[in-house]
């Protein structure tokens, strides 16, 4: 197992490298470039643009830029004033040494910027996933146990609806209903806030933070609750017809114990794998939530970076995203092997 994980991790290295080249080309061939980006000052004089271009290293050929991005340029002399003479060593250490460069817009190290935004996404995602699990698991189990009951049919219909609702539209409708239409009976203000993580300027209170979580979490979880409850339903249906469930019942275990301990544990197996594979999509899905509810997270950061053509920031988020995808795939395989003793990798 350990060997298998190491081999898979080693295989991931060339893949990550290949993807990074692809993405680097893609990011850099974009016309307009950071100097024409939206977030920048409207008019940059041509001579100023020259200086900026040199500063950003954009005057170099693409291949050189990639190498500098990967391993840095502090080992070679670069031309800073545009006289054609390379006079001083570069400043960049390259991503292999943990230097993702400096954001064009904020002029701060990329990793520092990401460090500001990432915890907010993790916070939102954690709460969302807890809610998804708390809803999807009981709903999936009950649907399977009471197959074709009114409950099951209702859930099936709702899950078809949940899969078809555009996530961002759900967000808009939630704002419409809970912010614009429904009023707080005590203050007369909106029932729920329509954006942000907390009331700016107000002292910290759990109530205030909680209020700001409700709508984003509902928006982010509806699709996944319907998806996983469907999935768990069919996986439970497979399990509860197995012999060992009959055995469990025959030896007099309570129905609750049979279903929730013996059956559920096995039914969750495939779900865990699917969940690991879904992880990147779940994280990516938070992009819409963050944009609609002005949540200061990674999705919004990426969106802004794409608007601004903030190359270093874009590349950093894309590489981190790729690493998440690759690691999730590996995680899916590992978890599968751990949970199912019949599976061996060697």
């Amino acid at each position, binding site marked *: 197992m350990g060997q298998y994980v190491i081999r898979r991790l080693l295989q991931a290295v060339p*893949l*990550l490298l*290949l*993807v990074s080249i*692809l*993405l680097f080309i*893609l*990011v850099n*061939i*974009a*016309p*307009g470039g950071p100097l024409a980006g939206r977030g920048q000052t409207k008019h940059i004089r041509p001579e100023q643009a020259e200086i900026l271009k040199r500063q950003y290293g954009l005057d170099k050929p693409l291949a050189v830029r990639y190498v500098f991005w990967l391993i840095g340029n502090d080992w070679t002399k670069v031309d800073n004033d545009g006289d054609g003479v390379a006079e001083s060593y570069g400043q960049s250490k390259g991503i292999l040494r943990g230097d993702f460069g400096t954001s064009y817009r904020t002029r701060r190290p990329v990793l520092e910027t990401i460090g500001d935004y990432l915890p907010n996404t993790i916070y939102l995602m954690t709460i969302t996933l807890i809610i998804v699990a708390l809803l999807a698991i009981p709903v999936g189990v009950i649907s399977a146990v009471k197959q074709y009951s009114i409950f099951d049919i209702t859930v099936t219909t709702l899950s*078809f*609806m949940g*899969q*078809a*609702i*555009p*996530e*961002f*539209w759900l967000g*808009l*409708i939630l*704002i*419409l209903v809970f*912010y*614009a239409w429904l009023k707080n009976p005590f203050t007369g203000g909106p029932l729920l806030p329509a954006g942000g993580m907390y009331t700016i300027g107000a002292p910290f209170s759990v109530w205030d933070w909680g209020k700001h979580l409700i709508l984003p979490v509902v928006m982010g979880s509806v699709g996944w609750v319907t998806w996983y409850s469907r999935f768990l339903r069919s996986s439970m249906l497979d399990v509860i017809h197995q012999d060992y469930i009959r055995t469990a019942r025959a030896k007099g275990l309570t129905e609750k114990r049979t279903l929730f301990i013996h059956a559920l544990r096995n039914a969750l197996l495939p779900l865990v794998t699917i969940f690991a594979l879904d992880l*990147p*999509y779940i994280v*990516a*899905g938070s*992009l*819409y939530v963050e*944009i609609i509810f002005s949540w200061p997270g990674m999705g919004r950061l*990426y*969106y802004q970076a*794409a*608007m601004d053509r903030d190359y270093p920031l*874009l590349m950093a*988020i*894309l590489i981190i*995203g*790729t690493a*998440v*995808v*690759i690691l999730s*795939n590996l995680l899916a395989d590992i978890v599968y092997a751990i949970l199912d003793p019949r599976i061996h990798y060697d």
Partner: protein
Amino acid sequence: MTESFSSKKRTETLSGMIWKRFWKHPGAVGGSIVLGALVLAVLLAGLSPYDPQKSDLGSRFEPPSWAHPMGTDALGRDLLTRVLYGGRISLLVGFSVVIIALLIGVPVGAVAGYFGGWVDNLLMRIPDTALALPSLLVLILLAAILRELDAPLLEKNPVLTIAGVIGILSWMFVARLVRATYLSIREMDFVTAGRTLGASDFRIIVRHILPNAIGPIIVENTLEIGYAILEESGLSFLGFGIQPPTPSWGNLLSNAQEHMTKHPWMAIFPGIMIFLAVISINYIGDGLRDAFDPYKVMTKSE
């Protein structure tokens, strides 16, 4: 002559059976009716007395009424007309994505699965790499690049551009599915028989295996149309997809965002259209899945 006749008759029976079972699936019937109505309405958009692009500043933000069943927008344009024209774009993108994904994914998957060995290794390296990409992020990046690319061809064909971007990021799933199906079918006796009789590889891939592999391909790609519509609407909502003044369901919602608390109809109707289109396609896909499922033939005695 007789041979081809009898084989034709047999395939007709099989597809006839699938057809019959599809129409017994209530979800599939409902989905087909709704989708059919949507397509028809969208095709008849030209019958509207209003122009989808021309602004009428005298009738801005009118709530739904008989004259404007979905109200009007910030420029006084009839929302129903814009929703119908936008539907043309959104549905067209949805179908085009799948056609693009099929055009790339089926040949790649079929060749990889049929030949196996190094061909398979080489060909499937591409989807494997592409599947390691964070797809939504790359989708946004690609769309952002293409939006500013100074290419007249792309400017004139926004549908093709957006469909191309989404298609490029979704054909891998088709390729994987087709490869897996080919891998299992190529071991079957009728393929060996075909080869013994001297059929070329091309003929076996296209004429012998493809008809037997078509079921899962159709089912998965029907569902893919729905995802593609959702993806287009999301991209256009973010401002990276179809650009105004050309309406699409996504950019109508993007437009509605700033006005919606006062003029909610602008946000409600385009979203309902996306919802209806996607849910009806998903029900059709569900019906097709049941209709193509060979186990249902054996268990259901009809």
